[in-house]
């Protein structure tokens, strides 16, 4: 086994990992940074983010507005000090990306343009057509090549962290291309491995979004926080779950049911207006829109697609070809290529699909986890800005704001930490290798892991979907326990060393099952409804007495995770009513007048 001695190891080279690497390289060019990614960095799932990144820039907007939208949008489960920090840093980070070359869409005068997004009271979403994440990722990757201290390990798969003496000291990785293992030693480690949406059946996520970093931290005793909050995006392609950005609605697209009726007006989001109105109708938050779809389905007002999925229509015909081509070219292409539809003349069938993991690895405001030397940033982390429901265009900002923080914090930690003694921890790396090889080579009972993966995704959708019921969540928890048992006995077809993707997927499934358990048990124990966690079994209301609290899931070997609760940091916005549409406007006006918080 090879070994590599770094000062800082970053696992994951999407938006957060690349931003962290650049921040660390700028903070101290003398430190050696190892940047590990299981795919080429530009394949990372940041690439698929479409709509844009929020940052206050208009004169009539304010940081306070962005703070308020985010905290209320998260149904008060946000860490308010973290949100304050986030909204303050979001715009400087967007300007930094502009300086590095992101081709932000512009106004005629050459200033950066912004668009409306769900749950945001003023337009503040910076966008690069509908390829915002793509451009941010490529710009960060290309910019990162400037820094000689960043040593990339492209297409290296992370098997486990190395933890000794109460602190993280590196990770064991596998190169699929050569079949060789490497122990990478480092005094500080940043996890930036993305979300876990692939544990659900219909989802918008790339195949790589399998919760690897979450599971690795979890297994080393770091709590996963608020994992039951899983975001359904309301407008996705039936069957595959491919995303149609919220910007479709920000630019004026309508959601209509099978009768051509803009049904959102029936769910407290009205009144109807022909032009988009912020925080109303189609620009309501994602949880509310996905829930409205579910209700329409029960009322028989959706239709069934050729794939057997129920759906409503995203209608953009009134926007015209020119606007669609300028603002939403990717969406236009997806409808044409994948569905054979022309969105200028035909409405697009859409339905909700799992999109984003609000919860993640517990960190403080400095991205530090409870495990010394371990930091986490981006979707894999729970730094506290999303609460029970993330607002669209707050996650790209999270990548850069907290990727930056993680890079600087890791530098600070690494400089103050003792050097790793490879002789002392090499056995751990060897044990990780042995474990991986044992999974590859075990005789097993002959079952394919692909079968388990499908059953996991189906049970997560059934028990932890848009609306949840106690017995169904319990059934999902039981099913996951059964799948974990069967996982121990799987048989791989491929026992080779080079590009054994059968093996990699099997290891990923192990990660996914652990993360799925944290989600399902967190959901079962949260006996209230808040944000993306909505119950229909007697717990339909938000319960601030018992559950204005973060869920903490702790890993237990061979048993279900232990669920406990921790306090939520409320600094200046006490819990209030979360309202959109006409009622939302009333409350907002009252807030401005100072008559109501």
């Amino acid at each position: 086994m090879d070994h590599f001695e770094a000062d800082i190891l970053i696992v994951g080279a999407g938006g957060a990992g690349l931003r962290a690497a650049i921040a660390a390289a700028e903070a101290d060019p003398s430190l050696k940074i190892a940047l590990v990614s299981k795919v080429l960095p530009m394949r990372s799932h940041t690439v698929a983010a479409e709509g844009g990144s929020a940052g206050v820039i208009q004169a009539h907007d304010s940081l306070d507005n962005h703070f308020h939208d985010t905290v209320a949008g998260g149904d008060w489960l946000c860490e308010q000090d973290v949100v304050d920090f986030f909204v303050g840093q979001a715009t400087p980070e967007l300007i930094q990306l502009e300086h590095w070359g992101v081709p932000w869409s512009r106004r005629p005068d050459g200033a950066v343009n912004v668009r409306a997004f769900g749950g945001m009271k003023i337009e503040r979403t910076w966008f690069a057509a509908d390829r915002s994440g793509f451009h941010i990722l490529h710009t960060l990757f290309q910019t990162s090549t400037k820094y000689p201290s960043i040593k990339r390990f492209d297409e290296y798969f992370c098997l486990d962290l190395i933890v000794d003496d109460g602190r993280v000291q590196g990770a064991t990785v596998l190169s699929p291309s050569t079949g060789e293992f490497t122990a990478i030693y480092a005094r500080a480690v940043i996890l930036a491995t993305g979300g876990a949406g692939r544990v659900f059946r219909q989802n918008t996520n790339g195949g790589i979004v399998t919760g690897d970093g979450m599971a690795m931290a979890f297994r080393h005793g770091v709590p996963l926080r608020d994992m039951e909050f899983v975001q359904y995006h309301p407008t996705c392609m039936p069957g595959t779950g491919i995303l149609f950005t919220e910007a479709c609605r920000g630019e004026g697209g309508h959601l209509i049911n099978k009768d051509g009726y803009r049904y959102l007006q029936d769910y407290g989001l009205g009144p109807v207006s022909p032009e988009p109105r912020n925080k109303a109708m189609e620009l309501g938050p994602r949880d509310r829109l996905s829930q409205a779809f579910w209700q329409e389905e029960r009322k028989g007002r959706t239709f069934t697609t050729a794939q057997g999925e129920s759906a409503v229509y995203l209608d953009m015909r009134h926007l015209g070809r020119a606007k669609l081509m300028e603002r939403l070219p990717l969406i236009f292409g997806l409808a044409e290529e994948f569905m054979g539809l022309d969105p200028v003349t035909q409405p697009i069938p859409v339905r909700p699909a799992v999109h984003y993991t609000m919860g993640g690895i517990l960190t403080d405001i400095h991205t530090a986890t409870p495990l010394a030397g371990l930091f986490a940033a981006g979707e894999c982390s729970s730094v506290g800005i999303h609460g029970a429901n993330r607002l669209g265009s707050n996650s790209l900002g999270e990548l850069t704001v907290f990727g930056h923080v993680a890079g600087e914090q890791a530098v600070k930690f690494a400089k103050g930490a003792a050097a790793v003694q490879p002789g002392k921890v090499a056995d751990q790396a060897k044990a990780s290798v042995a474990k991986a090889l044992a999974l590859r080579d075990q005789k097993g009972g002959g079952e394919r892991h692909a079968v388990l993966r499908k059953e996991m995704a189906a049970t997560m959708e059934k028990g932890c979907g848009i609306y949840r019921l106690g017995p169904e969540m319990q059934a999902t928890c039981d099913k996951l326990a059964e799948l974990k048992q069967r996982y121990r006995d799987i048989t791989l077809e491929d026992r080779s060393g080079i590009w054994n993707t059968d093996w990699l997927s099997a290891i990923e499934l192990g990660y996914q099952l652990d993360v799925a358990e944290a989600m399902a048990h967190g959901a079962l124990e949260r006996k209230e409804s808040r944000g993306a966690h909505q119950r229909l079994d007697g717990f339909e209301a938000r319960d601030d007495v018992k559950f204005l609290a973060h869920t903490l899931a702790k890993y237990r070997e061979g048993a279900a995770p232990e669920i406990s609760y921790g306090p939520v940091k409320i600094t200046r916005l006490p819990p209030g009513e979360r309202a959109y549409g006409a009622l939302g406007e009333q409350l907002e006006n009252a807030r401005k007048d100072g008559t109501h918080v």
Partner: protein
Amino acid sequence: MSDPAMTTEPAKMPEPTAQKTVELRILRYRPESDEAPSFGSFTIPVTDDMSVLEALQTIKDTLDGTLSFRWSCRMAVCGSCGMMINGEPKLACSTLLRKLPPGPITVEPLNNFPIERDLVISVGDFVKKIESIYPYIIPKEPRTIAEGPYNQTPAQLAAYESYSDCINCMLCYAACPQFGENPDFIGPGAMALLQRYNGDSRDGGQKLRLDTIHGEDGVWSCTAVGICSDVCPKQVNPAHAVNQNKTNSALDFFLRFLKKD
């Protein structure tokens, strides 16, 4: 099932769409056991909305777990799943079965690259080419964060925007006859990226990048076949980028010549 209506119902049901099948002929190569690549054949049930990628996933999940290929986003933006489909470089995720002619579908790894295994080719040299062209803004006029964003008009944005849409899928390299003959040729994708930065009003790094385009593996290796632009799934038009750089390279050559006088 005593209700007579219930007992007759199955006979009226339409044929399930999954009855259709398709054969895929896939070039297989396992370096640890195979001397040379050879074709394997798989027949799977398909539906009209399936992509070649979904067909490959079906094979991997149900027939042969040893089949290896790269994929991720499924929506033609991550650039992972480039391969030769019926002899043409395509993204497997956005190539729908219903758009292919009837009969077996041939799937091979991207042309012009070493095969590591099955449909997985070596990408390292391509990444090095990208890194070699100074793929970042070298500011014409440095600016601090406090000074805010640069001004860039929609026309200035349009000057480079399409080149910034390259997803690094390498289809253009698989199509390029020059790259096939000379693997050191900088190639269409990297040249599009070079033009993306050269054409950006914020950038002042054009001089530094000239060496890449002058050299014997630079733009002049291109014989203007133009097929790179034909196969691009994102309409980036790398052929146009190469041509613009031929102009720049020629201009620079003559300017240097004049200066020598």
